[in-house]
């Protein structure tokens, strides 16, 4: 019986695929968001509201991930934005290979902002890098204040947390300060935006932040071209 040293990360195959996706996104100059949340937190509604503000100035495209149906990609197309639907069947998260396959029929040339809306799931998507620039999490105020501590990996690995449905705070039995404190403890570095995509509260802050990200990437791409 021989022992063979391996020392290989189990996530390696996905990481390699994610890096290849990254190369494609860098070539097209696209800023890519991996949009994640529990089912029903409001990912697609937040995305619709964000698209309405961003699409007049930037070319947006969306890759949707769901177990079944094309409901979400249909909603995005209804806004005049290109969308591609991945139906995973029973797989509870998107991985880099699924996105790579989608990119063969849904190219990102000329796309400023690609949003990949992940399967609604607070557990598995956290471990699967897709080649994104930013991980954006939607956390609705009616999910309970202890959610960040119960699902720490998802919260900890997010760059942005959109605290959605703040119009329902009076009925949630939770103070905004408690929600914010729990998010900050698990992820002191995340940019946090309390919003209601339904009433529009807080959307200016989130859209302003995202627009600044897109602008600075455009400036960087232009300066790279000049050199």
């Amino acid at each position, binding site marked *: *019986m021989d022992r*063979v040293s391996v020392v290989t990360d189990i996530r390696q*195959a996905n990481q390699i695929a994610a890096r290849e996706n990254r190369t494609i996104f860098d070539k097209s100059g696209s800023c890519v968001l991996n949009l994640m949340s529990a089912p029903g937190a409001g990912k697609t509604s937040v995305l619709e509201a964000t698209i309405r503000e961003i699409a007049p100035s930037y070319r947006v495209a969306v890759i949707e991930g769901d177990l079944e149906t094309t409901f979400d990609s249909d909603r995005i197309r209804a806004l005049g934005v290109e969308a591609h639907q991945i139906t995973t069947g029973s797989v509870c998260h998107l991985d880099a290979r699924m996105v790579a396959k989608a990119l063969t029929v849904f190219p990102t040339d000329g796309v400023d902002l690609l949003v990949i809306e992940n399967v609604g799931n607070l557990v598995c998507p956290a471990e699967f890098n897709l080649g994104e620039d930013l991980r954006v999490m939607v956390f609705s105020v009616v999910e309970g204040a202890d959610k960040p501590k119960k699902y720490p990996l998802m919260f900890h690995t997010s760059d942005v947390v959109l605290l959605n449905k703040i119009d329902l705070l009076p009925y949630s039995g939770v103070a905004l300060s408690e929600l914010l404190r729990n998010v900050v403890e698990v992820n002191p570095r995340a940019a946090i935006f309390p919003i209601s995509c339904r009433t529009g509260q807080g959307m200016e802050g989130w859209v302003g932040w995202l627009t600044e990200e897109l602008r600075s990437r455009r400036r960087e791409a232009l300066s790279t071209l000049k050199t």
Partner: protein
Amino acid sequence: MHELSIAESILDIAAAEAANHDAAAVTAIKIRLGDFTGVVQEALEFAFEIARQGTIAATARLEIERVPLKTRCPECDMAGSTDFCFICERCGTPLEILSGREMQVEFIEVAEQEVTWIASR
């Protein structure tokens, strides 16, 4: 259930190493699994039992070493607590993770091919 895809990745890595060494079978796979990963040990063990069937690791035992989540303050060097708080209790700086995110195949144990001597005339 994504523990199944993780079990398959573990088996792919083990099979590739076994092929590099012309092994007849993989008899054990040792992995290091951090406490701050999205993986449940029992689910992974169950998925492994299913996924290893019909592979070169069909009889392999899976050894799992758990790695605890350890954090440290980069400013004042204080060790973080074991709950999921990533802010330094002393100075409020975001903590860095020292361990707990591991998901690694450390080594495998293989059984060599039996050598058959063919007598030449």
